[in-house]
Structure formats: structure tokens, C-alpha cells
């Protein structure tokens, strides 16, 4: 019940903040309405980083304590993080089309880093899906999530350098709006979006966590059931077959 209330609160605050960002706050003088994309773009990017940080920490928690709750949190955060990363990338490209004149800008370190981020964690999710045993899956995922998290700063740094050592391309980066010179209504709108998105993130995390927990228990139940069935089948034949060794063994 409490979680449902959190969900309703998340929905209402996101709706209110979105209406404000779309219709109430004035459009940017230079960029026009395209600048409004920033209000969902920046919170999405923030939640992506929050999610992947959570995945890495939860992975460390699993390795340390071997408590499956950590693995549920890691999975939940990774999935939600991939969703928000894709969202941030999409928003960035939508914004880039009118403002840069191109949806993809190799000179911008953020868009290239975000694309790699998406690839890193899609790989993480695929790896999880391909590993059947829950404990193995949790361990593999934990260390892969850790390596991915270590890699993110190196990726960002290298891409930044890649551009910086050659040309100095200065675009109006989305998060420059956070600087003190930005008009107050813009800053407040962005803060409202950040806050409401974070509430929504918390709700999604809790729900996905519960789902992961249910999946784990379902897997365990299925494994126990198949094990019990195999035991029942195995009891009778072994008694009658015991005296004669398999042909392959005799030949050796």
C-alpha cells in the first residue's frame, strides 16, 4: 500500500513538473522550444548514473555478503539504468538535430560516452540472461558491473581528451543551464524535474526489486521440483541396473 502511494506521488509530481516544463516556463531565447528537451534529458542522465552506481555497489555487496537481495537491487538498477540511458541518448539526439544541425555529434563527449554506457550495460543484462544458475549469475554480473563502473570514468575522460587535444568545440551543453547565470525559473524547473524523476526512480526500483525477488523464488521452486522429480525417477532403475556395469566402462 505504501509503495502504491509512492507510485501515485511519483506519477503526480512527474506530471506536474512536465506540464510546468512544457507550458509554463518560457522558451529559451536562442534554442526555442528545443531547449525544453533538456528538462527530461538531464534527469534521465542523472538517473542513469545513479542506477549504474547502484548496480556497482550492489554487486560489491553481493560478493561481500552473498545475500541475494543485493543481486535483486543490482538487476533492478541495471535495467532501469539502461532504460534511462536510452532515454537520455534519444533526448540528446532530438535536441542535437535542431541545435547542432545533426543528431550525432562526434565532437561531443557526452553523447559518445552515453552510447558506450548503453552498450556496456546491455552486455551486462545479456550476460545475466544467459546464465541459468542464480548464484553464478549474481557473481558474474557483480564483477562485470564493477568493471563497467570502473570503465565509465576512463571512457568519459578519453573521449573528452580525444576531442580536446584536437579542436575546441564549444556547444551550449545542456547542463550549462545549471550555472548561476541561468535564469531562476529555468533552474527551478530543472530541479523540479530532477526531484520528480528521482521519486519515480525509487518507485521503479522497489517494484523491479520485488519482481526480481519473485523471479528468484520461482526459479528456486522450479529447480527443487525438477530435482525431486528426477530423484523419484531415479530410485527404481538404479536398484535393478546396479549389478551390470555400463558397456563403455567395461571396454576401458
Amino acid at each position, binding site marked *: 500500500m505504501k509503495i502504491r502511494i509512492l507510485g501515485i506521488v511519483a506519477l503526480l509530481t512527474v506530471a506536474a513538473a512536465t506540464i510546468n516544463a512544457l507550458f509554463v516556463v518560457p522558451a529559451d531565447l536562442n534554442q526555442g522550444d528545443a531547449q525544453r528537451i533538456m528538462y527530461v534529458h538531464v534527469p534521465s542522465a542523472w538517473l542513469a548514473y545513479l542506477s549504474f552506481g547502484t548496480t556497482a555497489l550492489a554487486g560489491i555487496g553481493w*560478493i561481500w555478503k552473498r545475500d541475494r537481495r543485493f543481486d535483486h537491487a543490482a538487476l533492478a538498477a541495471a535495467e532501469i539504468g539502461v532504460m534511462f540511458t536510452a532515454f537520455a541518448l534519444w533526448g540528446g539526439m532530438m535536441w542535437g538535430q535542431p541545435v547542432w544541425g545533426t543528431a550525432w555529434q562526434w565532437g561531443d563527449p557526452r553523447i559518445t560516452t552515453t552510447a*558506450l554506457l548503453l*552498450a*556496456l550495460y546491455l*552486455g551486462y543484462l*545479456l*550476460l545475466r540472461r*544467459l*546464465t541459468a544458475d542464480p*548464484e*553464478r549469475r549474481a*557473481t*558474474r554480473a*557483480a*564483477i*562485470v558491473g*564493477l*568493471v*563497467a563502473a*570502473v*570503465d565509465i570514468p*576512463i*571512457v568519459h*575522460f*578519453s*573521449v573528452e*581528451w*580525444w576531442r580536446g*587535444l584536437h579542436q575546441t568545440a564549444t556547444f551550449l551543453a545542456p547542463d550549462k543551464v545549471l550555472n548561476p547565470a541561468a535564469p531562476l525559473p529555468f533552474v527551478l524547473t530543472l530541479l523540479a524535474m530532477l526531484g520528480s524523476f528521482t521519486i519515480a526512480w525509487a518507485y521503479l526500483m522497489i517494484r523491479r526489486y520485488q519482481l526480481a525477488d519473485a523471479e528468484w523464488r520461482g526459479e528456486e521452486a522450479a529447480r527443487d521440483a525438477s530435482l525431486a522429480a528426477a530423484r523419484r525417477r531415479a530410485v527404481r532403475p538404479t536398484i535393478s541396473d546396479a549389478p551390470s556395469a555400463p558397456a563403455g566402462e567395461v571396454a576401458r
Partner: protein
Amino acid sequence: MTVGAQARIALAVARKDAMAELRGRSAISSTLFFAALVLLLFGFALGPDAAHLAQAAPGLLWLAIVFAGLLAVARLHQLETDDGALEQLALYPVARRAIYLGKALAGFGAMLVLGALLVPLMGLLYAVDLLAAWPGLVAAVLLGTLGFAAVGTFYAGVTVRLRAREVMLPLLVLPVIAPLLLAAVKATSAALSGDPFGELGAWLQLLAAFDIVMLIVGAGTYGFLLEE
């Protein structure tokens, strides 16, 4: 366990891998052949304009190293699991990081053979003058292949038991080594062009930092893979 003992174990593991690889000669020569073929096909894809090819040469070289390197590091783990030797290796009462470092060292060796073949071949096929650039080039190849071996060995350990490992290894490795690829290509092209902007040192430092971070992370976490 002392550092010296761990180093001896790592060397023993690396020697074992190298021996297994050299005795089954067909695998290493087919990997080398594949890498050479990639370089040749890039020429067809981007040629025949020689100036264009020479400019793209560092990027093509590193892509060929990466593609062939994926095969090389996958093999080093594949050999282990084919006859259950990885479990044996995991049972030895030695530090797991020494095993990881040994396997990474073997991978590094294989990558160096690859580099020693591909760099001259690049010079030949793409008409790039290597002699003037050799110190920077050697440094870039050493640091780049070391980092690739560190990451590749780690992920080969992650994926070796998966049924879909042939797909999963590149899927996991390629995004992680993106900074390595970028820095190695930049360092190589800086070395080849005589380093007009003085950026070679910076890229080599980035490569070295990547290598150190990934070796530490790999050595720290590889043990958990063997426990499975």
C-alpha cells in the same frame, strides 16, 4: 604468499599456456592469418587511394589487432575448459590473482606476436613509413596489447562457460576497450606523423593508466570466477 612466489606462479601459468598454444600450431597460425586477412580486406574496403589508406592505417591496424585478439584470448580459456583443466587450475592452493596474471601474460604474448606481424604488414600494405616512428609505435603496441590482454583475459574467464560465448565475449569486451582503442589509435597516428602536436606522451600515459587499472581490477575479481 610473497610477491616473488606469485610472480613465479604467474610465469608458470603463462609458460603452460604458451606451450599448449605452440604445440597445437594450427590455432595460432590461423589467428594470425585471420588478422592479416582483415588488414587486406580493409584495403579493399577503403582503397585504392593510397593517401586515404595511409591516413586510416592506425585505426585499421588496431581494429585488426582487436578482432584477432578476441580470438586469441578466447582460445586461451577455451583450451582450459575443453578438458576440464580450469577446475584443476582453480584447485591449486595459490593466489588467484597469480593465475589471472599468468593467463593475462600469455594473452599479452599472443597479442605481441600478433602486433609483430600486423605492424610491418600495415607498413607494407598501406605504404606507411615505420622506421622513423618506431619508438612511439613500439610503445603504443606494447601498452595497447597489454591492456587488451588484461581486459580480454578477464572477460574470457567470465564467458568461457556460456553457450553463447562466441558472441558474448566481443559484446562485453568491445565497449570496455573503447578508450583503449581510441588512445592506441591516437598514439599510433601521432607516432607515425612525427608527433606534430606533442600528444604522443599523453596518449601513452592514458594507455598505461588503463592497463594498470584493468590489471588491478582483473586480478582482484578473477578469483570469484574460479570459485563458481
